[in-house]
């Protein structure tokens, strides 16, 4: 029986079927698969974070040339501080690490928001009208009406109310489009799994 698929494929097939069994009803096979997944995925985090980030970026540089990289002690220390919240009495010291972590990433976010999002997007709206495409104004109307919908500190008059209503309609079109695309995305995942079951597992068993 040389055409039998390797043991790994059998494991994967068993776990795939166990997970799919949830569709019939919640059952021990599914709970087994789900718990195993929760554990394995955490273990995966441990392995990958240690091997790919903490060892090459923190431990190895300090081992090789401590004089040059001694400052890496600081993130190491802050990282340990994060875990201090498991000790209720001095839990507040983890606020230092949390504050740095949160504000740094939010500062980074700030650089993306105006420079990378608002300005290029508004620049795109500025086009000569009527352009070569007679429907180009639809785009402009769409962007501006959605922006009007997002005005908060202004009382809506009869005109702005109509504009922001139009803005909602544009939003709904884009949500509809997103739904259409999402169907495709979700189905793709299922196609992938059934492909595995049929092409890698069942066909080899049948010798096809």
């Amino acid at each position, binding site marked *: 029986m040389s055409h039998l698929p390797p043991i790994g494929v059998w494991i994967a097939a068993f776990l795939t079927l166990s997970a799919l069994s949830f569709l019939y009803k919640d059952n021990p096979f599914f709970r087994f698969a789900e718990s195993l*997944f929760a554990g394995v995925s955490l*273990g995966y985090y441990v*392995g990958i974070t240690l091997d790919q980030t903490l060892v090459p970026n923190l431990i190895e540089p300090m081992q090789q040339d401590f004089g040059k990289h001694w400052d890496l002690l600081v993130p190491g220390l802050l990282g340990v501080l994060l875990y201090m919240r498991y000790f209720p009495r001095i839990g*507040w010291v983890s*606020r230092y690490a949390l504050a740095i972590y949160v504000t740094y990433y939010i500062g980074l976010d700030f650089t993306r928001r105006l420079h990378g999002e608002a300005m290029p997007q508004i620049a795109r709206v500025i086009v000569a009208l009527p352009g070569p495409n007679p429907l180009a104004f639809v785009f402009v109307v769409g962007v501006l009406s959605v922006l009007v919908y997002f005005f908060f500190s202004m009382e809506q008059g009869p005109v702005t109310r109509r504009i922001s209503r139009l803005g909602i309609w*544009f939003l709904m079109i884009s949500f509809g489009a997103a739904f259409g*695309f999402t169907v495709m995305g979700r189905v793709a995942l299922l196609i992938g799994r059934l492909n595995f079951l049929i092409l890698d597992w069942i066909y080899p068993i049948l010798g096809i």
Partner: protein
Amino acid sequence: MSFDFGRVALVLCFAIVPIIGIFLGLNAPGLRSRGPILVGVVAGIVPILAMYIPKGFVSGPEGMGPRLDNWLIILAGFALLLGIVNVLQNNFKKIGRRESGWFFSVVLLTGLFVTGGFGVYGALSGVGIGFNPDGSPTPFKYMTDWFFQPLQSTIFALLAFFMASAAFRAFRARNVEATILLIAAGLVMLGRVPILEFLAVPFPFFHAAAASGSQALGKLTEWIMDVPNGAAQSGIIIGAALGAASMAIRVILGIERGYLGLGKGE
């Protein structure tokens, strides 16, 4: 450069100040919130300054910006593992008390220790977590390929089923807005895949008509995606960008500090 200003400044702000703050905070509860906020202001401003000031000590290869980036890559690694302590606590408690379903906690912990153990071994032994020198997969990679990957993929594949059921039960044309949403969704779904051709498979007579109909629908979908959808997305992006940027200012400057568990009282 012998005196590395960027490094000294960073160490001062993110190591010396916190250490002093922690010691002082032991006796002065008021400092327990003010210290972190102060340090946070610096951490938030550095990446913004680094974007506009190319001077070496700010954004040169050894400057404050890039060095802080480096540090935060490491801190992010620590943050990623933070959940594990919680998971261990919860599951050991469950097993200890023999709560219902404790067996599944055993399964979870086994998965965690086996996979994590292989990972730790690979990382510390220098073998790595990918392939052995002879090209065969490491145990960690074996776990990833045959346990982790199929489970993650399948559990997400369940969404296809829920999606279909939601389409049947939840998506109703209740009002004008919902109707617009549904019409747009329907057109896009028709235009992205050759549904007309699929329906025409048994009727050779309609093949040509289906093909051109499909083409037209495809063009219409592209237009919807580009123009009305693109416009709405741009609008959301600009609006949300301003909202997020203003929120960022409040958070960085410590005006909004709820995330630290500090109400307006402190």
